[in-house]
């Protein structure tokens, strides 16, 4: 019987952790929803920014050892990014919802298009931090470098 190709859903991507700020405003809640969708699509694994904030040793260790940390902040307060930095966790990609054209409050409403916009931006690498490459760090996929699997070309 001929072999059939395997879909890589949930595999072969660089190992990533996603920290949504999960703030109370619509933009904060959107980070959570986007992180859930990204996890379902195999981009990475959602983790708790609050747990990181209290300095959970296991989470800090994991976050320092993955190929890339994605931080989603709802607004320019940048709470989740500041939490990551305070724990010494290098941020590989960072997106701010208000910079993606999403207006913060006062409405709590959001659309599926908002979520799609955020998720697509993550897959595209729009928030990639240029100097996030970790020397000597292992990456997923086949390549080495910045963690996106590009071999350090991006």
């Amino acid at each position, binding site marked *: 019987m*001929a*072999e*059939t*190709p*395997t*879909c*890589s*859903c949930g*595999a*072969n*991507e*660089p190992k990533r952790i996603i920290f949504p700020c999960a703030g109370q405003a619509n933009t904060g809640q959107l980070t959570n929803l986007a992180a859930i969708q990204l996890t*379902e*699509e*195999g981009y990475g694994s959602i983790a708790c920014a609050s747990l990181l904030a209290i300095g959970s040793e296991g989470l800090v260790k994991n976050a320092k050892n993955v190929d890339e940390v994605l931080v989603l902040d709802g607004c320019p307060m940048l709470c989740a990014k500041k939490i990551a930095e305070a724990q010494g966790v290098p941020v590989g990609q960072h997106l701010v919802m208000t910079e993606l054209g999403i207006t913060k409050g006062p409405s709590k409403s959001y659309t599926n298009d908002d979520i799609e916009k955020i998720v*697509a931006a993550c*897959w*595209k*690498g*729009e928030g*990639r931090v240029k100097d996030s490459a970790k020397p000597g760090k292992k990456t*997923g*996929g086949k390549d080495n470098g910045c963690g*996106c*699997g*590009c071999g350090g*070309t*991006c």
Partner: protein
Amino acid sequence: MTKIEILGTGCAKCKRLFANAEEAVKNLNITAEVIKVEDLDAIVEAGVMLTPALFINGELRAEGRVPCVEEIVTMLKE
């Protein structure tokens, strides 16, 4: 004209790769044909065992992962 083929059966990752490839072409402002190949026999025939896969002008450039837009731009510039 550059020919870009995205091989995959249509899961979320295949769709993301297709969108990223289209975005890369748009960013470079080049004329390119971006094609989805969803037929399983055609995917096997191309030697791909882990989808999604990205071919540029017939050459396998990525397999089993979704390169970001910048990476595809770099590949297209080569």
